[in-house]
């Protein structure tokens, strides 16, 4: 039912939106000053369309991070680098300090490790970009810890990230994905479980 009306909406709206978006130039699309009233949720048509279609620029990482190599060494995701996932809602991106716990002494001669050490020397953190996450308009309050306690494996939502060198989003975390899993596990499926 919902999918139907959604499809119908897309059929008539999509060409119009594309046309509008195409004519809006980049310069115009840069954020105009906020009006005091009736500010649209998206300040530009472009951003509205992007959000609607779930198009996000692929995160550009400062340098490739081989998840695979680290996992192969037996470093588990939530043991060192994303340990916050066990304790609370956010898995977190480790700071350069975390990298240097091991790389103070391991593989110090590799060029990338030198880059990492250099970050720490300058007091600047590695600008890792988030790969997964929700737009603020989706009003999702995801909490890692209860999922881990329920023995949901990392790969369920993060795919084969453990095999990747540059992390890519290859699981589409749409609502249906969450709802289906919650259904199969008899987890609560109230709107308020995630949206508040």
């Amino acid at each position, binding site marked *: 039912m919902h999918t139907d009306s959604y499809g119908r909406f897309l059929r008539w709206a999509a060409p119009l939106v594309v046309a509008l978006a195409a004519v809006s130039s980049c310069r115009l699309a840069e954020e105009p000053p*906020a*009006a*005091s*009233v*009736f*500010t*649209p*949720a998206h300040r530009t048509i472009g951003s509205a369309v992007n959000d609607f279609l779930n198009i996000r620029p692929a995160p550009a990482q400062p340098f490739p991070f081989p998840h695979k190599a680290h996992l192969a060494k037996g470093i588990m995701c939530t043991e060192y680098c994303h340990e916050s996932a066990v304790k609370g*809602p956010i898995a977190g991106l480790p700071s350069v300090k975390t990298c240097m716990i091991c790389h103070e002494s391991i593989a110090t001669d590799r060029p990338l490790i030198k880059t990492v050490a250099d970050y720490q020397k300058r007091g600047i953190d590695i600008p890792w970009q988030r790969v997964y996450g929700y737009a*603020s*308009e*989706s*009003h999702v*309050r995801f*909490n890692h*810890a*209860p999922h881990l*306690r329920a023995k949901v494996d990392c790969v369920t939502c993060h795919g084969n990230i453990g095999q990747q060198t540059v992390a890519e989003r290859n699981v589409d975390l749409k609502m249906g994905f969450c709802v289906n899993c919650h259904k199969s596990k008899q987890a*609560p499926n*109230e*709107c*308020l*479980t995630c*949206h*508040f």
Partner: protein
Amino acid sequence: MAHRWGMAVDLDRCTGCEACVTACRAENNVPTVGAAQAATGRAIHWMRVERYWEGEFPDARLKFRPVLCQQCDAAPCEPVCPTYASHHTEEGLNAQVYNRCIGTRYCANACPYNVRFFNFFNPIWDKPLHLQLNPDVSIREVGVMEKCTFCVQRISAAEIQAKADNTPITDGDLKPACVQSCPATALVFGDLNDSESAVSRLSRSSRGSKLLGDLGTQPKVTYLARQSQA
């Protein structure tokens, strides 16, 4: 057993200090709209303290009544919502799902308590006031309705914690921000399904009544009348 969250407001304890009003704003990222917008009736207060004057000087009396979403069991706001943004949860909360809301404002029209507020514009926090925002609560954007949630983020956190610890939530441990702050303990929150909880006991008080109870909205907030000897 499922929870059924409710509140009791003892008007004989309430002093009108409005600690609850600010606590709610701080907890729930309720924006300030500024003088010009407030003048047009666009100020947002999930919790307010109403005041009623009675009589004339020198026999004037003033009565306070904290008013928040009454979390009705027969909520007039719910059936009018075309998108099910306003709906009833299994625990009996009147949920407002922001990303379903398309801003018809029908719910605000239907609500007899005037506790639903519309976002006429995107909220603005002059930097760095935004650093105070509670990361556990959504920022509502332009075009959506918002209202008291009984601090659903606290309920959710308590339920997740209770499940992790495998212990039930102790009565009195879980408090919405308004209840937590109330200096005179006029506000009491708890599980109405637990007949021994403080809120259940107060809700059975002979002083108790529902706000606009005649409308048949079946609120989960009970007001205990102020006693007076004069």
